[in-house]
């Protein structure tokens, strides 16, 4: 291979994916997840982690099969991330210190209610005055609680991952809401293109489903209330869609410069060809109705990849199953893809795994790459009553064998967050 074979259309190092790991409500590991995803199985279930009486939504895609020492979102998010990173590094054939930077998408952290109740019980009777936090402060000031402290620090998860896997430098912990996973990957791609590193560990994790999280999203009318048949609740692009299903999961991608990957004889799983982003100033929770920022994001990703929309063979949609997102996403996609739109398959992994929030962009990037590797398009399940206003080839209900060499994956989030990734098959 000549030197130029390692450079992209702008002369930047080509970024390869050499390891992937994933956890969702469908299971642990890429192999189990892919088997479930391509057989159209849903991971959404009735919540058992906490009582759901009085809640309007009682279903979720929680991940309850990975042991944690203490039930809180830091421990869960760390455990999921640890497992997916172990899987990804094994696949990449890397052991010992990772030696590159860590970019972690992680959920914002707050004390668990169980921890507040526990603190409350520790307040002596004669000090039960003032607000709850004054009472907690009195308890903790007298006797600091390192375990509680670590469970409420935003930097706890990346700290532990950095120690465990020997990453280099100060890890970045980030949130771009539901686009976070894609942003973590984008930061890794940028670092390699900058020449700062030959490899980057990009991780996205979310183990933050709790009663308060459900209630907060419910108050914004964002969640499906299809409680009776959990597996049918997430139904992107249908007329009956009534909100997303909150879920948990994690994914890790090992990114390397193509040159470094091939030099060490690594197997290249795919190429992170382009990343795009554009913020929206329309509203805190709603996207510009004309899809302008989403369109700009997709165009930016294609331009970064040096590809035209004609070369995209499959779209891994954000596809949340909310009335507004799916409509806006269709508006954006159909603007970009024009007359070709009916011929480009578009499916939503969220129909099966729900919305893994912080992790979604990375989980869906892993599935996008796997789509190219296996030549199988995962379906959009629950596609029983298509919305005529969204005339997409949604790969309805059943997987489809189809070789694709380039995939576009969308992520949109509250706060005007939009990110888009373009991935291509590894160069033959």
């Amino acid at each position: 291979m000549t030197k130029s074979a390692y450079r992209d259309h702008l002369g930047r190092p080509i970024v390869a994916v050499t390891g992937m790991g994933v956890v969702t409500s469908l299971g642990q590991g890429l192999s189990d997840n892919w088997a479930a995803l391509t057989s159209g199985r849903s991971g959404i279930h009735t919540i058992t982690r906490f009582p759901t009486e009085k809640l309007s939504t009682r279903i979720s895609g929680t991940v309850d099969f990975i042991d944690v020492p203490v039930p809180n979102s830091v421990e869960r998010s760390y455990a999921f991330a640890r497992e997916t990173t172990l899987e990804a590094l094994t696949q990449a054939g890397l052991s010992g210190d990772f030696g590159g930077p860590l970019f972690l998408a992680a959920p914002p952290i707050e004390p668990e209610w169980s921890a507040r109740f526990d603190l409350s019980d520790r307040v002596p009777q004669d000090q039960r005055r003032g607000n709850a936090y004054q009472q907690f402060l009195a308890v903790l000031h007298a006797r600091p609680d390192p375990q509680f402290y670590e469970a409420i620090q935003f930097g706890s998860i990346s700290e532990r991952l950095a120690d465990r896997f020997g990453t280099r430098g100060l890890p970045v912990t980030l949130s771009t809401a539901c686009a976070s996973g894609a942003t973590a990957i984008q930061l890794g791609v940028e670092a390699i293109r900058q020449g700062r590193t030959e490899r980057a560990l990009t991780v996205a994790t979310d183990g933050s489903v709790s009663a308060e999280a459900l209630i907060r999203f419910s108050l914004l009318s964002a969640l499906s209330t299809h409680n009776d048949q959990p597996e049918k609740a997430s139904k992107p692009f249908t007329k009956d869609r009534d909100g997303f299903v909150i879920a948990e999961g994690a994914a890790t991608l090992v990114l390397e410069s193509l040159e470094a990957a091939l030099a060490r004889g690594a197997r290249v799983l795919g190429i992170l060809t382009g990343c795009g982003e554009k913020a929206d100033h329309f509203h805190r929770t709603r996207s510009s109705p004309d899809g302008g920022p989403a369109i700009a994001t997709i165009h930016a990703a294609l331009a970064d990849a040096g590809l035209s929309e004609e070369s995209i063979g499959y779209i891994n949609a954000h596809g949340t199953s909310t009335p507004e997102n799916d409509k806006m996403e269709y508006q954006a996609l159909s603007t970009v893809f024009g007359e070709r739109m009916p011929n480009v398959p578009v499916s939503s992994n969220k129909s099966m795994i729900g919305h893994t929030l912080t992790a979604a962009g990375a989980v869906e990037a892993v599935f996008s790459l796997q789509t190219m590797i296996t030549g199988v398009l995962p379906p959009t399940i629950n596609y029983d009553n298509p919305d005529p206003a969204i005339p997409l080839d949604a790969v309805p209900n059943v997987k489809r064998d189809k070789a694709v060499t380039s995939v576009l994956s969308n992520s949109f989030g509250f706060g005007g967050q939009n990110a888009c990734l373009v991935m291509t098959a590894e160069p033959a």
Partner: protein
Amino acid sequence: MNQPGHQVVVTGVGIVTSLGVGRAAHQAVLSASQAPAPVTDSEQFAPYTIHPLPEIDWSQQIPRRGDQRQMENWQRLGVFTAGLALDDAGLKDDAERCASMDMIVAAGGGERDVTVDTLIVEEARSRNDREVLLNEKLTTELRPTLFLAQLSNLLAGNISIVHKVTGSSRTFMGEEGAGVSAFETAHARIAAGQSTHCLVGGAFISERFDILLVVDAMGLLQSGETRPFWSRTEETGGINLGTGSAFLVLESLEHAEARGATIYARLDSVIGDRGSREADRLEQRMADLADQVAPGATGAGTLIVSGATGIPGLSARERDFLAGRFPEASTCSQAALLGHCIEAQFPIGMALASLAIAQDGAVCPFTDGTNAPMNAAPATALVTTVGHQRGEGLARLSALRS
């Protein structure tokens, strides 16, 4: 780690601290003949001392009441200060450059509803079905908009809405390290040509019981009688939290010159790291950072804006390292004057350093006695942050001489 490439310059400074609002108020502090008195409040959150929010007319930067109502003070302060930075850079009304401007915000979490939390905690004491009570109370008592005021990335989201900064929007979290990473990433992107102009900063509010809890869960807050920064002991705790925000506009030199921007300083290098602080590991890591950021420097003509938290042992280790490594530098302890601002600590240090480099003449020590005065404007400034629990960062800014 910082590659040669495009030069990165500071062209806009927005800053709010307990000492006042805006660039001019802080330039006055830096050029005063004697150290100003810190503004503190030891009563509202007794036994803790905090540095409060100065008086602010939010509508100066957040004109719509509706926007103000959608936020609590943490987001308001950040959005307000970001507006100051855009104004200062001459970009506030430049719709095109705001629409292509990148943004990185160092954020924690927003204010909780202490009243609702207290109600639930109190009622739960007499109930044995606490989780059901929780569902019931949260469903009926939580304000829907409060969720958005709490979400970390909604500070950036509100900057997009209010100031139309929409090139990109990224929120970094993780206490002090978030502020360091925000500048490290913005610098690396501009230097590599991945970005031409970027708004970078953070905000922090100490006047919150819920935020005091986050730090004092480890007993790290100074309590009881107010004590000068370097007179605090491990027994009385070390940190007085501050309230403040800083946003900087960073640009490539070409981009700044092409639009005729005023340049405060050049951001030469900024790097963060982390790891064990056992034995002399912290000092070794600081030395590695210094080797990369300011190789061979002895500190002549250099102002060091130290972000030391006030935790006695940790702050003394940083002070001793800096004195040994940069013996000729003048060091100012930011937290002694302004309190410790967690995610916003490093951004505020960067703002103060930029202003100090750009000013004429002497830089006032931040506190009397322990900080050596600087008799001329520094040619170079170093900004440090040693996180209260983890994470360290070091940046170097220089005067851009033509």
